[in-house]
């Protein structure tokens, strides 16, 4: 079964994504701490797309889908904005970010630490960011 939500590209929609993910993840035996980390990773990718690919234009939309197969959760974030390939992005070190006084970049470090695999695909003119997380911790 695929769970799906469509949100407008506004920062305030991030709360809706989190509530949606929490509701779906409640069906699985995952500790609250790990569940929260997965929600954080999803929030980070959606925030990145909303802010950088859509400049918070509320007329634009993104779709988030969650499904599970053989104990692996698949998160798909689908949009039509500028492509940002997170899987090819070289994550700076946390020390470098602190030294540069940059608040950004931390989100992508989190996503890469939390998720097992990230891929970017083009599908019928849409960007699809797929992230995978094993339910076997």
């Amino acid at each position, binding site marked *: 079964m695929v769970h799906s939500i469509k949100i407008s590209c506004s920062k305030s929609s991030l*709360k809706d994504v989190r509530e949606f993910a929490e509701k779906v993840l409640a069906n699985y035996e995952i500790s609250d701490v790990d569940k929260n980390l997965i929600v954080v990773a999803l929030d980070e990718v959606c925030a990145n797309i909303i802010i950088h690919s859509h400049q918070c234009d509320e007329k634009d939309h993104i779709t988030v889908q969650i499904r599970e197969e053989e104990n692996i959760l698949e998160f798909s974030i689908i949009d039509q904005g500028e492509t940002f390939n997170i899987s090819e992005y070289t994550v700076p070190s946390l020390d470098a970010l602190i030294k540069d006084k940059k608040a950004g970049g931390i989100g992508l470090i989190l996503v890469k630490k939390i998720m097992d695999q990230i891929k970017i695909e083009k599908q019928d003119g849409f960007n699809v960011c797929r992230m995978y997380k094993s339910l076997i911790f």
Partner: protein
Amino acid sequence: MELTTFNEEKYHIIAIDGELDASSALKLDDTIEQAIQQGQKSLLFDCEKLHYISSPGIGVFTSRIDDHEQNKISLVLYGMNDKVFNVFKILGLDKILPIVNSKAEAKKLIDGALNKD
């Protein structure tokens, strides 16, 4: 997210209530900036009612580490729940930012830092 600020002796306390994400981080950043402009040197962040944090919220703290050291401003976070603490921990920030359990410990840590100077 709601912020409450008040002074207790020499400590300036900022209590965070709610979720600190891309839509609310700027509000906290402005509040910290205001406190610094007022000349506050001992900032305590009450995280007991902080239910969620993502990178923009974390960035509010990390982006100021060097400035605070230079300007002798002490900053301590206390009362975090496990979920929020774990986001700091997975980044290794539990070793870089002063995070303690209680307000009393936070005050003690600041007093220790002040005595060292």
